[in-house]
């Protein structure tokens, strides 16, 4: 029988970098040219199946990027197993913002959290302000996964979520879905016993998918 795992994933990043668009692409394979800025937080789920038939269910929290709601972000990334910090490759300021988020996660979030840095809007590479070298170098230094995506074309989107699923410690004893009965919102602690996992956080392991 195949194994099942469940993880809590949070998306962070400046407003308008494309967090909601990435989730929409990943969950529904759709794209919207005119998306409204998120004023709140949305909870969605999506499952990925790995090559070894293991299924990983993500409980995704898409957060609000606007500065005004920054103080609420910790409520949504607490207990997260993984975070996707998004920047817009056409806006160098958005990478700066991503760095602040990553610093905050490293300080405040669960120490074993898996962080992926994601440069979005790859389809607009003509207007690129953030070079791949710069971003990758930063990611390597900080031990983050890194990739570039386009929510518009779909390029790299499934891949980054799959890469995260692979990176998450699936062998940890607590990782299987606890009570299959409850299908409501995310449980406070999605599943992984973070103390018992073997991979140490901060280990450089960038994925270039």
């Amino acid at each position: 029988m195949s194994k099942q795992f469940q993880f809590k994933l949070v998306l962070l990043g400046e407003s308008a970098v494309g967090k909601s668009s990435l989730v929409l692409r990943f969950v529904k394979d759709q794209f919207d040219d005119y998306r409204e800025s998120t004023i709140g937080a949305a909870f969605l789920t999506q499952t990925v199946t790995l090559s070894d038939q293991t299924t990983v269910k993500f409980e995704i929290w898409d957060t609000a990027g606007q500065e005004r709601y920054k103080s609420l972000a910790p409520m949504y990334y607490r207990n997260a197993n993984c975070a996707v910090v998004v920047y817009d490759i056409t806006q160098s300021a958005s990478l700066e913002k991503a760095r602040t988020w990553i610093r905050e996660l490293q300080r405040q979030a669960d120490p074993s959290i898996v962080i992926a840095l994601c440069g979005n809007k790859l389809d607009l590479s003509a207007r690129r302000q953030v070079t791949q070298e710069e971003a990758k170098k930063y990611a390597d230094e900080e031990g983050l996964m890194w990739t570039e995506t386009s929510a518009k074309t779909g390029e790299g989107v499934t891949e980054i979520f799959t890469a995260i699923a692979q990176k998450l410690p699936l062998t940890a004893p607590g990782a299987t879905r606890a009570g299959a009965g409850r299908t409501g919102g995310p449980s406070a602690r999605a599943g992984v016993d973070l103390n018992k996992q073997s991979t140490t956080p901060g280990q450089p392991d960038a994925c270039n998918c």
Partner: protein
Amino acid sequence: MPAISLVSDLLRSPDVAKVVLEATLVTASETSQDLQNRRVLAVISHKDDWDLTEEGSLFVCKYKNHVNGQLDELDIQRVFPIYGEFSVVISQMRRGTVDLRPTMSSKSVLEQPRAVITLSITPSEGLSNDVQPPTFFTYDVQGLKSLVAECKRMKEVSDVEANAVINLAQSTTHFSWLKPYFAKHTTITTLASTSQDLREINRPSLERLSPACAGQTGDDHADAQAIRDEWVRVKARDLSRNGRRRLTMRLGTFNVNGKMPSQDLSAWVQASVNATSRSQPNTVTPALPPLKKISPLSLGNAVQNPFNWLSGRSKSTPKANITQPEDPILRVDPTDPDDPDLLVFGFQELDLSTEALIYSTGTAREDAWCLAIFAALGEKAVKYEKLVSRQLMGMLIVIIVKKCLKDCFGNIRTSVAGAGILGVMGNKGGTAIRLSFTPPAHNSGGSSKSPWGPTSLTFVNAHLAAFDEMVDKRNSDFQDLSKRLLFEGIPARSSSPAPESESVDDSMTSDVPPTPSLGLTPSLSVYETDALFWLGDLNYRVDVSDADMRKILRDDDWDNAQKLEALLRFDQLKKAMRSKKAFFGFQESPITHFPTYRFSPGLMMDKFGYDYKRKPAWTDRILYMNSPGCRVNQLAYTGHPQIMMSDHRPVSADFSVDVDLFDPNALYTNVRNLFNDVERLDGESTHEKGGLRVVDTYVDFEKVLYGVPVERKVTVKNLSKGPCAFRFVPVQLDSPIHPEWLQIHPKTGILLPDEVVEISMVAYVDNAIASILNLRPKDLSGTLILHTILGKDHFISVSGEYQYTCFANKLSHLNRLRGPVREMESPNDLLPEIRSTNAPAELMRLLDWIMTNKIIPDDLFLAPGNDTVIQRIQECLDTGDDFPYNARTPASDEQIPRSFAVTLVRFLDSLLDSIMPAHLHLRCLEMTNRDEAFELLNELPPSAINVWITVTSFLHFICKSSKKENQAERVATVFAPIFMRDDPHSLIPPISPKAKSKFLLYFMG
């Protein structure tokens, strides 16, 4: 659409419909074969995941009512698991026995068959003796044959052991797949019944939901159901109500101490329900101290619920808004509105003999007391008759009703529970009666059957553990009785079914929705009712010393209302209610009578007749609890000291109960239709459906002023194709959902597709909130989180700038202000300590204006001012602006100086410092002259001394210039409770208001 696909629409995968048959329910009454009786019978097969086992069930489905007559949806009416004794019996219908008018459709007229065959279904668990199996007839002989064959096959594949009976509601193995099919019907039946637990129903809606906060959704599925059920219940009730009728009753409790009646009981027994005043034959005249009229406390009361205040909506406690002027409520017995419709008397210690503890001692005593009651009714006695009584040892409860209403009462059930030694034997416990009241038909000529549904009333008569120190035992006795006083289930299909617990979907007993439990309706607790009245010798005492108790009761320095108020703060029952240890959620009217215990007929008694050996107490009480739909209003609550045959005095209470006129069939239909609207609330996540849209995500209250409510509306729309539910959640689990200065309504709700709701948000700062905000930065911004059940969190930013005020502030702050309080940048923006002034500038401005003013009305401080003027004065104090009222050119309007006076009182009353701390009050009593009194002031902090001296010498001046006599005494009664505030947490009773005035007069006089 063919019936088979309609049935398939109802099924969950992997279930399939094997055979489908159209048939008509045979009803006992001679009704035509209208749509109401058309049914679709279907044999459903369920296989497990591995296709190893199969189970079958026969579904009875009914067409949903559609206005346009289209039959495109079915409801499952009943499910019969196929095993055991299940059988379908077929017989040929004899001509002449059935009305063959085929009215279904013109098509079926043409195809009118020759043969009409009936089929009767015997359920698997068998039939009880007096129940007819549901019977249908059909023309479709071929279909019937296949149905029977399939049922037979299903019975063969069933592996339920012989003689076993499966409880569908509880089974986790056999037929557990059927649960979702009948769950809906059970829910609808429950929602349409009136037996909801009052404790649950009266809890604020948010408290009934699962704990949740930002990023941590609770149990959304359970919450969806809770919100849905409440929405359906309230809405259906509102839709089904055809007005209300008022039932009146007198309740009484009397611990008779084993005595036989020897005195006229009419004071206790007879009530005039039109009596508006509470102070009946009582020695107590409730008098409010003059302060209440003008103090900020009364301001607080007026706007306690800003929603009521702003919109005139009545949504607070059902008790508060009992009289709706717009719809005068008719009495259930309009011919005789002066006398109560129902009399309920609880006795304790009816019989103190030892035999009475062990076995029932006959009804001699009960008869004697009932005789005394009827004697006390005098000429009215002929109108009444005893309906029911129940006795347990010394506890007896008797219900007497007006003869003309007797038929309105039904479903009478009684219960007893002992709470004494071993919980069974002893002299403590309770007896209870539950009955339903069905309002008589309009223009009732007497015999016509009432079209209305019943309202259930429950009465408990209890006798709890005695002695001062046994308060924990009393609390646990109460909890114990709450659990153990149960009204046993009655047979679900007895000849007189409980109308409120039976479904009225079909008047046919043979076609009721499935009852998952067999045989009996569940037993009911005393809380599963529309209104509960709990009376008795509850034995709660007063936690003050015996000496204090007697001294205050007899002390002429208090008026009676003040005495009772001061002492009742220490009442153990009130304390138990506050700490939720007992009687939580019950209401009790204010007590305006003296303690009812203990009186001694001999010599050993004090001036009031209270026994020297027992501290007087309010042991005999009457409390109640009601559902929001059943409005209860208490008209009187009285002790009867003139009835002296026992060591207790009897207590009575008059109530009016407004019962709904509702058609039970309409209620059931409304519940079902509303439920269908919101059924899929907890279905797929609302992301799929679009969800809610919060139109206003930013709400600015701008300047938030003390005492001035500001309302903003937030519009929320439902953009999805299905219903959406929402609830507010806090940022953290243990934090409130909104800041204290803000109130939100509603906090939970449901929106149907395209529905728009306005959420009202009111910023309001009273003294309590100002005392917090005055010490905080003035920026009020924050975020509210509106959580869509199974969907998004929406953020609503609220902002505002708090305007600091001198009200509800600290002397130490006010004395160190750089300028007007409004100009403070932050609460720490103060002068250094050494530069602090002697008294607040605001206080001096008020005194100054009144002193300069040429007219000093005689009722200054004693009469209310004008609210607009007061508000303007307050604002000028805070801003430092000049008062727009010139003191030197006296206006003819005396309202202005009065308003200044009121503002002064409010200012002093709102100060966070207590000028003369409560722990010094007893010393104040000892002072015998002016010099000693001044001496005592040295114990106060310097800032308090300054305020004391400044204000008292000002009052001295004002009162001296009054032409009236005793002006100082009168004004002192206003200022004494402000300068000498009681400590609400103190364990000793306060000193008397007169003593406070006396002390104050050393300075003012």
